[in-house]
């Protein structure tokens, strides 16, 4: 049954229909998180998550188990986020908010007491810079980067979710890491918590 499905496992269509609520409960956090870090807008992320599960429910008859439930849902989410990103309204708010407010908010999150005040400040600056670099990435690079490093998805899963080949995924990832790497100082750690 979907309620007992672990990420990455297949679910029969009949199970989907019988207990879709369990699927929503299990995968909502993942879809919402990916939408949030991609769009950096809580309301838009919630809308994407809602639309994602509504579309999944509507399209459940077409789910053949070729990929995992997680990958299938992320594929829907990727498409919805791309549509959202293309909307002119969201573009406007992104331009207005990404470079200052959201990056600052993200940087504030790294204050868990495990670092000294000095290194914490350094880490926050570092983190803000990395988030800013991520925000400036082209859409596909950003999507691949976030799926790989925030959602911990494998390259083949990312390829399935984005409709790209594994080689193209690696290339996007490489380009994204090149951009992110420029924000990281050479010869030392970031001061991050790991």
């Amino acid at each position, binding site marked *: 049954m979907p309620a007992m499905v672990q990420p990455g496992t297949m679910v029969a269509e009949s199970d989907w229909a019988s207990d879709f609520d369990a699927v929503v409960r299990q995968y909502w*956090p993942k879809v919402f998180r990916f939408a949030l870090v991609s769009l950096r807008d809580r309301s838009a992320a*919630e809308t994407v998550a*809602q639309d994602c599960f509504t579309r999944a429910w509507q399209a459940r008859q077409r789910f053949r188990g070729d990929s995992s439930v997680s990958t299938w849902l992320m594929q829907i989410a990727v498409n919805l986020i791309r549509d959202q990103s293309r909307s002119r309204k969201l573009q406007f708010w992104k331009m207005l908010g990404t470079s200052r407010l959201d990056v600052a908010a993200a940087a504030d999150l790294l204050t868990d007491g495990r670092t000294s005040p000095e290194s914490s400040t350094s880490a926050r600056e570092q*983190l803000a810079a990395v988030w800013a670099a*991520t925000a400036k990435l082209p859409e596909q690079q950003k999507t691949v980067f976030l799926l790989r490093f*925030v959602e911990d998805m494998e390259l083949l899963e990312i390829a399935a979710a984005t409709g790209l080949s594994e080689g193209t995924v690696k290339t996007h990832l490489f380009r994204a*890491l090149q951009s*992110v790497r420029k924000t990281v100082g050479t010869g030392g750690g970031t001061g991050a918590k790991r």
Partner: protein
Amino acid sequence: MKRRQADGHLTPDEIAALMAGLDEQGSREHAQGCGRCGAELSALQAAVLSVRDSGRDWAERAAVSPRWSRVSESPWSFWSRALTPQRLVLASVLVAGLAGMEAWREYRIHADSEAAAAEVSDAALLAQVDLQISRAVPAEMEPLATLVSWSPSSPAEAARQ
């Protein structure tokens, strides 16, 4: 991609390629054995991990409860949503009202039939009273009346009769 530097260390591109899964033969081994390249790789990994941690933390703080709606629902889920406590109370009041109206109607029918029966009984009693009143002597005394003959005792009385 820029190739290995003149001093033998990995280039930034090679570091990024390692992280992206595009590592070439020997790059990973070099990074594992070289302190400087290993540190650069660790710095990039740490930066990426900090993005992951902060992104997850951010999502947890901004978490919202799942809210979505199906286009079609099972009958049970429909009724479980439709039968709210307020609606149940309203339905109970309506059922009680209808039952009360029915009881009142039954009572009225019963009362009407009783009234009709009483009317018939009253009419019979009145008829009996009228019959008794219309007699010259009460029915119990009629045998005695036949034993008595009445004759006028005076011309005035005869004239009255």
